[in-house]
């Protein structure tokens, strides 16, 4: 695989959420609003890049029988480390991120990419794979966050869009279902449907 493909493919043909169906749980939990979705997207991208790199460097020393445990130790050490440093020097950022720490460690994309890619690839391609998958995840997360916040709360990044447009005065109401996690699942389903219909080669027989 070419290096450019490592970045390009996860956006569409090998998207972690749409095609690999990884990281769906966090995608339901944090997309009720745009801001947490963006914070989560950035955090996961950084973590998946770094952990891919570290695991790739260690890959020849890791005994296959305990590889999952080793991956877990590396990922959680990394995430807790970043959280600690932020708490000391960038307290406001850490306030935003600390709730995500548990979500990032258990994010299936991180483990999935370590298993599928970093365990058998050299460090540089692994780093790029992490970047690509992180960005592919981000695109879906931010899309969901945008739609759900706009129609669920009538705001975007906290800015009251619908109110400024004057829609409430003519009888518009927010869709409460948009706030609930099931709606995120429905939206992901719709996006997958649309995505498959455009990429017939992805359809299972």
């Amino acid at each position: 695989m070419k290096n450019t493909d490592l970045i390009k493919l996860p956006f569409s043909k090998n998207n972690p959420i749409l095609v690999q169906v990884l990281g769906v749980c966090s995608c339901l939990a944090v997309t009720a609003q745009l801001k947490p979705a963006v914070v989560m997207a950035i955090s996961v991208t950084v973590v998946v890049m770094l952990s891919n790199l570290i695991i790739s460097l260690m890959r020849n020393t890791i005994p296959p029988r305990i590889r999952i445990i080793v991956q877990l130790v590396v990922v959680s050490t990394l995430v807790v480390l970043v959280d600690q440093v932020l708490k000391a020097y960038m307290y406001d950022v850490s306030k935003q991120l600390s709730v995500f720490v548990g979500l990032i460690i258990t994010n299936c994309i991180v483990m999935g990419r370590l298993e599928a890619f970093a365990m058998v690839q050299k460090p540089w391609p692994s780093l790029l794979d992490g970047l690509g998958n992180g960005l592919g995840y981000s695109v879906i997360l931010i899309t969901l966050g945008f739609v759900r916040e706009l129609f669920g709360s009538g705001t975007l990044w906290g800015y009251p869009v619908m109110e400024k447009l004057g829609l409430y005065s003519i009888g518009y109401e927010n869709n409460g279902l948009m706030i609930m996690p099931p709606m995120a699942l429905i939206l992901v389903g719709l996006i997958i449907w649309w995505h498959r219909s455009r990429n017939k080669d992805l359809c299972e027989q």
Partner: protein
Amino acid sequence: MAKKNFSNTYIFIYSAVLVVVAALILTVVSVSLKPAQEKNQRAETKQMILKTIGIEATRDNADELYAQHITEADGHYTFDGGIILPLKGTGLWGPIWGYLALDNTSTVVGAVFDHKGETPGLGGEIATDKFAQRFIGKKMDTQAIHLKKNADKSNPYEVDAISGGTMTSNGVTAMLAKAYEDYKQIPDNPEIPEERKEATE
């Protein structure tokens, strides 16, 4: 990649070394960063308390403003014009806390909430100003404030709960009820009749 054969001894040593190294890194980082982190947390608590009485402090001037405006009493705080009650409870995933400033008529003049790990966008919304604003003007005199879906905005004891954050909202209701019990015990509580106040003094 050709899978090498790893002996059991190797696996044991490998995992032991890995865990020790990881633990060592985390311990060193945690211990060396602790003073800076605690300083931030103390300043944040002061910022939160100041916020309930409408003073926006930064982390740098929080100490100074706190000393000017707030007096610490037994289990609560006082400011010029009322009492600040600390709130402590549990949400869905972990601790939640906050402060509630009451004036001499037990009316809420300011509130602030925070949480450790509630779901962002759902229960995590309690930390927003938008949520805290809902408490202003509510009363803690004859009963505690509680959270309710589709609350009646004119009812001084009801505050609108968070959609999708029912468990966290219940946690907030529980900690308000607890704070109300504590509030009743405070000797200079204006709601306590004069004669009982004398008895406690």
